């Protein structure tokens, strides 16, 4: 980590589904302990870019990547790198809340640790409590951790998924439109949570809601048709966009 001011450095990244190229020549450096938003019209490749950062892209049959993604200065696409270890270090939160079925709240949060070999009850208990507290869910569920995760409301489920990702102590958090299935109040809770997380982690959030990007992020990347059109501080990008495409997009004239 020392000597690497950036958590991620994406270099000449191309991504494909089969023969179809959906990301081309992406170059971007992503800071630690900050929120970076990826915006752009739907289908432009936001999700794909996010999934290239923790090697989730390749689990889809036929999906391929060219180029480099440095994480703490190490290329995660090097041959000797095990994707499973990479994914353990980089947490991910999905568009739709997806708690594990037939599993209690406690187990939903603890399972990542359990399956990575942590057996001690005390350790698990404190990890679960810590993760649920970080995800601002603890007070709502502490009295009934054995309830099914699926019985929570949508917003609570999404925070449960965030707690689940935090429990394995990742170094960065990727979020793919984490609020798109939630109501405004639940969205607000998640947004303030995102701000808190940025004190400890590199948080990268995909959103197609520009207000959200403006509210929560420090840096914003604008993606269009698989290309990175503009990337910089959020304030700069929204107040003073350099590329006419960016301006068109943020003023709502397309997409």
């Amino acid at each position: 980590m020392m000597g690497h001011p950036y958590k991620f450095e994406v270099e000449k990244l191309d991504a494909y589904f089969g023969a179809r190229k959906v990301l081309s020549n992406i170059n971007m450096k992503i800071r630690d302990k900050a929120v970076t938003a990826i915006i752009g019209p739907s289908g432009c490749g936001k999700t794909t870019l996010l999934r290239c950062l923790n090697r989730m892209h390749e689990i889809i049959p036929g999906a391929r990547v060219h180029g480099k993604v440095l994480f703490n200065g190490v290329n995660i696409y090097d041959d000797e790198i095990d994707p499973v270890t990479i994914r353990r270090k980089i947490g991910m939160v999905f568009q739709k809340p997806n708690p594990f079925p037939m599993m209690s709240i406690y187990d939903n949060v603890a399972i990542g640790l359990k399956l990575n070999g942590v057996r001690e009850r005390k350790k698990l208990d404190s990890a679960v409590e810590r993760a649920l507290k970080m995800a601002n869910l603890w007070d709502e569920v502490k009295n009934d951790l054995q309830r099914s995760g699926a019985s929570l409301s949508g917003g609570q489920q999404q925070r449960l998924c965030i707690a689940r990702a935090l429990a394995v102590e990742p170094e960065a958090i990727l979020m793919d439109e984490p609020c798109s299935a939630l109501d405004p109040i639940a969205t607000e809770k998640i947004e303030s949570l995102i701000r808190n997380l940025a004190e400890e982690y590199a948080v990268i959030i995909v959103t197609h809601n520009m207000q959200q990007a403006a509210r929560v992020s420090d840096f914003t990347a604008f993606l269009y048709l698989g290309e990175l059109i503009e990337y910089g501080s959020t304030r700069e990008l929204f107040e003073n966009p350099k590329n006419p495409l960016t301006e068109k997009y943020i003023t709502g004239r397309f997409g």
Partner: protein
Amino acid sequence: MRGSEMYHYRMRRLVDDLMRVLVWLALVVALIPLFSILGEVFSKGVPHLNVDVLISPMPTVGEQGGGIGNAIQGTLITIFLASIMGVPLGVLSGILLSEYGEFKLSSAVRFFNDVLSGFPSIVIGIFSYTVIVTSIGFSVMAAAFALAIIMVPIITRTTEEALKIVPLTVREAALALGIPRWKTLIYIVIRGAKRGIVTGILLAIARVAGESAPILITMGYWRWWFSGLNKPVANLALNIYLFAISPFDNWRNLAWVSALTLTAMILIINVFLRIFTKEKYI
């Protein structure tokens, strides 16, 4: 309301009522045989039911009393043996079909499975006869083998369906936590589908518990207790057949008790099914 609207409204009400009556009638017609069979089995079986009958072996010709104890034992052993063979094979094929889409023979396995589930059970009995009976003779092994073959396609299909219901996003969430694929499958996907899988297993057991045709062909006659896998055991379904056509009163009574016991066993399995499908985690 105008006149024509009124007319249409009345017509709609009339048709609605008529359909309602028809549906209720259909329900009653469907339930009559069920309840008359249950009523018959209970009224003819219960008077002869007692502890002695449940724990004694079959009577010989002319012998008074006797029971169905050995047939209960035999039926349970047969089902158990069939499950040992059929459940793992069925569950594993279901997992293969659902989770390993890249497996080249998947469609062949699925096709074979569908064909198998459509086979008349007596044909499966004949198959077991040619494979097992001809080598080790009429035996509980041969009968259990036939029942296992009947169980496999049922379990395979329900397992496959149950696993497919677990959403892709759940699998992705597990992989994104750095959980390897095989652990994801065992601890998360199968766990999520566990209710459906167990339902399929219980359904298959309930199905074979009452099978008689393949038993008739593979088991052979046996009126003692279990005495080895290469020997037959007594069987409730077979008991019904053997006893019901006999000229002795006490044997015919035992046929009713056998029918009652078999019905009760299947009812119990179904109660388990209900309990299982109402588990706390949705």
